[in-house]
């Protein structure tokens, strides 16, 4: 009976993973298709990669997207970390409910509403104070920071709740100034969370289509906006080539990051074991 159940679970898992991965594998296979019509196989070729690399619009869009993603990730990590610190460590402060509501609302807000409301804000601002005079890099970056920092704050919050507060208290009791506690204790512990937050904010920004297409202006096409404008009209082999490059890059990045994290975890466990063994040695020596 039990065997039967786990067979069912296991086959569901295989089915689910196949469902997730087969479309992506086919997308990659067809990028090497020589034929102009995507799903009809016309022999292996790098033809569409060549087309892709010779297209200046793609390069421009990629460059703009990367610039936005880097600036966004950096600012979102800084502000998200501050917000996470405030929510976990400051107890009750004035306006806390509003603050925690505002920080988590972007996580579940439909993208069309976020995009529309930010565009209306930018238009209103430019009428009253003349800024932003044009929409593009700055407005997209501001919009991305606003929703990315919410994700960073969640990561930092969970990292901080899992962390032992007594470490900071001990440092304080030993006479360390608050700033010193922050730089020597809190930040090193937060660093992996901040790195994860930065990477997440970076990919969220690279991936966003809806919000960016609301707040962008003429001539500022991010990569998703460019891809979208092309695939709306149907299948395009050069987009398959672009998709392959993106998917392979992301996959290598994620696997590498996962491997490094796994090794660090192993190292940490080993250190703990060593420390425990040392303590045991010390205890037996002192009793002897």
């Amino acid at each position: 009976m039990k065997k039967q159940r786990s067979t069912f679970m296991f086959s569901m898992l295989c089915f689910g993973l196949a469902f997730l991965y087969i479309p992506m594998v086919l997308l990659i296979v067809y990028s090497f298709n020589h034929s102009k019509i995507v799903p009809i196989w016309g022999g292996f070729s790098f033809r569409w990669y060549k087309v892709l690399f010779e297209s200046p619009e793609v390069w421009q869009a990629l460059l703009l997207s990367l610039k936005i993603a880097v600036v966004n990730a950096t600012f979102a990590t800084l502000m998200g970390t501050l917000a996470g610190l405030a929510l976990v460590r400051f107890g009750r402060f004035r306006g806390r409910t509003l603050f925690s509501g505002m920080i988590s609302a972007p996580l579940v807000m439909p993208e069309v509403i976020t995009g529309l409301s930010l565009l209306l804000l930018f238009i209103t601002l430019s009428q009253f104070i003349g800024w932003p005079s044009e929409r593009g890099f700055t407005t997209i970056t501001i919009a991305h920071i606003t929703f990315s920092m919410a994700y960073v704050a969640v990561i930092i919050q969970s990292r901080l709740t899992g962390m032992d507060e007594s470490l900071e208290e001990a440092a304080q009791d030993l006479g360390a100034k608050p700033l010193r506690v922050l730089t020597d204790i809190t930040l090193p512990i937060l660093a992996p969370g901040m790195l994860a937050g930065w990477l997440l904010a970076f990919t969220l920004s690279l991936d966003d289509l809806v919000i960016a297409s609301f707040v962008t202006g003429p001539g500022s096409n991010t990569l998703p906006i460019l891809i979208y404008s092309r695939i709306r009209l149907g299948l395009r082999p050069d987009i398959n080539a672009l998709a392959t490059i993106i998917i392979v890059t992301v996959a290598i990045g994620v696997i590498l990051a996962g491997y490094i994290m796994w090794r660090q975890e192993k190292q940490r466990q080993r250190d703990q074991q060593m420390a425990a063994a040392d303590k045991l040695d010390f205890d037996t020596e002192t009793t002897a």
Partner: protein
Amino acid sequence: MSEASQISNSLVKNLSYKLQSSWKTLVVGIPYIWLFIFFLVPFFIVLKISFAESLIASPPFSSLFQWAEDGALQIRVLFDNFAYLWEDELYITTYINSVKVAFISTLICLIIGYPMAYAIVRSSPTKKNILLMLIILPFWTSFLLRVYAWMGLLADQGTINNLLIWLGIIDQPIRMLYTQFAVYLGIVYSYLPFMILPLYANMEKLDITLHEAAADLGAKPITTFLTVTLPMTMPGIIAGSLLVFIPATGEYVIPDLLGGGNSLMIGKVLYNEFNNNHDWPVASAVAIALLIVLVAPMMLYQHIQSKESES
């Protein structure tokens, strides 16, 4: 201790206290002000415009505040846009359809995702890491490109039709792209990881031996599932379902790319109302009405999250 040193001591203490509290103000203040300007204020602008009148002007809506002839400030609030949404059957149908599509997709995600999460929890630690990575990987790759992948599969000349014709099962391609079916498929495909991850996180914390005990005590598998496993995994089910349902209701990209012209989803209507018809007041009213539909599930999600972070 002399009086002077006592005073200077308390001064130093006072100063360091002030420094610390101003440091705290800065930590809270920067993200606070940012969110106030770029999240809260925009929301009120949308609310304001949703009560305005549509005009052919720049900006294309009337002002709520007007100076009457006798110099008094008048506030003109129009419920016309909401009345328009209410009276036009198209909008009502679209709202109902969006909720229906999101709800059914959430259910399908749950049916596929639940056994998957369960199987991952039950596997060995090394396998678990690899499987989790496989679930998370699509989440990091481009959402748009994953939807595009389905266009290639579902098209009339697409992979699935070609395969079925080659196998001799059909001789005419079945229309799958630009149908309601494709929208469901796209939503389930894109949001499945959002269902699996909260379920996994919830099950990982559970004591799996409990239902083994129930089984040992002679409970039938179905009884064990209904009385032990299901109630215990309820928080994960609710969190995962909300994470699928809320964004799916306002989804724009999937109905546009896979559903084609005849798919009625509210996110798409909002986008078109704003970008194609340039009717800002109606677009804003659509946005506010969408928020009203989603406010209950969104608050439920916040409630669960805050309870989760407390425990």
